[in-house]
């Protein structure tokens, strides 16, 4: 993946999702991102082995920006609208 931790900005919020997976991870993440302001960055720790595939797909679906992915750490910027 082209993103790297070194290029990542400071996170506005941190969430350790532990081993949550699949729909449980996605639906909780959905709510957490909606609670943030546009442009803010979430630092997510997701241990599930499906996360490296699911989180980029979720960002493509929802329009949020995956700034960095270094499993199990992900930086996601909330979309503007």
């Amino acid at each position, binding site marked *: 993946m082209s993103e790297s931790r070194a290029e990542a900005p400071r996170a506005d919020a941190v969430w350790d999702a532990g081993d949550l997976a699949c729909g449980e991870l*996605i*639906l909780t993440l959905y709510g957490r991102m909606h609670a943030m302001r546009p442009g803010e960055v979430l630092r997510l720790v997701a241990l599930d082995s499906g996360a490296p595939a699911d989180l980029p797909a979720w960002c493509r679906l929802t329009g949020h920006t995956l700034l960095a992915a270094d499993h199990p750490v992900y930086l996601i910027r909330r979309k503007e609208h």
Partner: protein
Amino acid sequence: MASKFCVSLTHSKDNTDKATVGFVVANAAVGSGKETMVFLSVEGVRLAQRGFADGIHEEGFAPLRELMDNFGKAGGTIYVCSPCFKKRKLDENNLVAGASIVGGAKLVEFLSDGSPCVSY
């Protein structure tokens, strides 16, 4: 890309694994911004009865009741197959939140724009 997503679920206590995974996937869909509908038919219609899902808890997953509650709170809808429901003599006045009893036409209408549907 289609904006809607359907999960067709035909099991409840006869296959708690499938019932659970159906709602996990539905939560992934609604959590990805899709207008998501779970279509309950055959034995799956029993899940539309308040309290029926209580106690169903597959290892490695959240309890089914919690998955269903979260689905409803996130805006997901549940369609319940009318003839399947009637055949089992279930109670229309004891439906879980967000569930409505429908005929096949509602399912066909939901899918008629080419929306995807996965089945469990």
